[in-house]
C-alpha cells in the first residue's frame, strides 16, 4: 500500500514536471539590437484596425530560441546577408536586351529605402496592388527588356533582401485605405477563412494561440516584417508567399500559389497587421 501510494505521488510529481517543463523558449524580454547599434522595434502597440483582436504586436524574432535570435544580432552571423550582398551585385549587373542595370535608373539601393516598409502598394498606372516582386518584374520586362523572374526565386529574394537591408529599422507602414482597401478586405477574408482538412484559418494559430506550442513549434503572430527570412530549416532565403503556401499546406488544403491574387491580397493584409514593427529583413528564423 505504502509503495503504491509512493508511486502515485511520484507519478503525480512526474506528471506535473511534464506539465511545467517549459520548452526551450526565447527570452521574451530580449531586445533586438543589430550590430550593437541599430535597435529594432519587435514589440509595439497593435495598429488601429486590430483593436478588436490584439493589444500588441510582436515580431517573430521574439518567439525564436536564444541561439536563433543571436544569429540576427550580428550581420556577420546572419546568413541572409549573403543574399542581400548578392542582391546588390544583381542590382549592378546588366540584364536584358536594353543593356541596362537597375543601378542605371536607381541611384543605389539607398534611394529605394522606403520600398520595403510600404509595399504591397497600390499602383495607379496599373490599377492594381503590387508587391515588391511584381514591381521588380515590371522593371525587368518593361524597362530593361529582360525576362521576368519567377515568384520567390532566389534572385527575387536576393533583391528583396537588399531592399530590406536599406530599409532596416523603418516601421512597416502599408496603406490599407483608398484604392487598396478592397484588396485588403479580400486578404482579411482569407486570413479568417478556415482552410483544409484541419479547418484552420491563419487566425486560429497566429491570433488566438500565438505564444503556445503546436507540437514542437512555438507559434508566433505570423508577422512578415522580417521577410525575406533565412530559415535554418532549408538554409536559404524564403519569401512570404512561399511561407503562406507552407502554412496552408500544413492545414492539408490545396494551396494558392506564390504570386497569385489571393496571396497578394493576403500579403497586404498580413503586412498591415505589422504596421509599426521595424523592417527586420533578412531575418533569421527556424
Amino acid at each position, binding site marked *: 500500500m505504502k509503495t503504491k501510494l509512493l508511486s502515485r505521488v511520484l507519478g503525480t510529481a512526474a506528471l506535473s514536471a511534464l506539465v511545467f517543463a517549459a520548452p526551450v523558449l526565447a527570452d521574451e524580454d530580449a531586445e533586438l539590437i543589430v550590430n550593437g547599434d541599430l535597435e529594432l522595434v519587435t514589440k509595439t502597440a497593435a495598429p488601429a484596425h486590430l483593436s478588436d483582436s490584439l493589444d500588441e504586436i510582436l515580431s517573430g524574432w521574439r518567439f525564436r530560441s536564444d541561439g536563433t535570435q543571436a544569429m540576427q544580432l550580428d550581420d*556577420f*552571423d546572419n*546568413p541572409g546577408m*549573403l543574399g542581400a550582398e548578392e542582391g546588390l551585385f544583381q542590382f549592378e549587373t546588366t540584364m536584358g536586351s536594353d543593356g541596362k542595370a537597375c543601378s542605371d535608373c536607381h541611384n543605389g539601393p539607398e534611394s529605394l529605402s522606403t520600398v520595403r516598409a510600404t509595399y504591397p502598394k497600390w499602383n495607379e498606372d496599373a490599377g492594381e496592388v503590387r508587391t515588391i516582386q511584381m514591381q521588380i518584374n515590371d522593371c525587368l520586362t518593361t524597362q530593361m527588356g529582360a525576362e521576368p523572374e519567377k515568384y520567390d526565386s532566389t534572385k527575387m529574394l536576393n533583391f528583396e533582401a537588399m531592399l530590406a537591408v536599406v530599409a532596416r529599422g523603418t516601421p512597416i507602414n502599408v496603406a490599407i485605405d483608398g484604392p487598396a482597401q478592397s484588396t485588403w478586405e479580400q486578404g482579411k477574408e482569407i486570413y479568417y477563412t478556415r482552410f483544409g482538412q484541419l479547418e484552420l484559418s491563419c487566425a486560429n494559430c497566429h491570433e488566438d494561440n500565438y505564444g503556445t506550442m503546436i507540437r514542437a513549434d512555438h507559434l508566433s503572430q505570423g508577422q512578415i516584417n522580417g521577410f525575406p527570412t533565412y530559415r535554418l530549416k532549408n*538554409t536559404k532565403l524564403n519569401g512570404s508567399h512561399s511561407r503562406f503556401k507552407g502554412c496552408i499546406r500544413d492545414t492539408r488544403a490545396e494551396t494558392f500559389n506564390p504570386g497569385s491574387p489571393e496571396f497578394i491580397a493576403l500579403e497586404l493584409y498580413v503586412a498591415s497587421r505589422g504596421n509599426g514593427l521595424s523592417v527586420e529583413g533578412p531575418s533569421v528564423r527556424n
Partner: protein
Amino acid sequence: MASGVKPRVKVPKSAAAGETITIKTLISHIMESGQRKDSDGNIIPRSIINRFTCDFNGQSVIDVKMEAAISTNPYFEFDALVPEAGEFKFTWYDDDGDVYEETKAVAIA
C-alpha cells in the same frame, strides 16, 4: 577559380596586450560534396575548401582540415590570444588548387 568565392573575416581593430579576442570567418563556397548526382545520373565532381588556416605574425593559430560533409559557406568562429600588435593572415585552400587569402591587422589599445 570556383565561382562566387568570397572570404569574409571579422576581427576587432584593436585589443589589449594579452587579450583573447573572438574571430569570425566565413567563405562563400558551394562545397559540392562529390556524392551527389545531377539529373542525368552523372556524379557532380567534388569541389570543396579542404583546408583553412589562420596565422598571427607567422605563428599558427588554427589549422583545419575540412572534409566533404561540411556544408555551403563554411563558417569558423574561434578565439585567439593577442600578445602584441600584428597581423592575422587567413588562408583557405580550394580543391582546384586555388588559395584565397585575407589579412587583418590588430593594434594594441
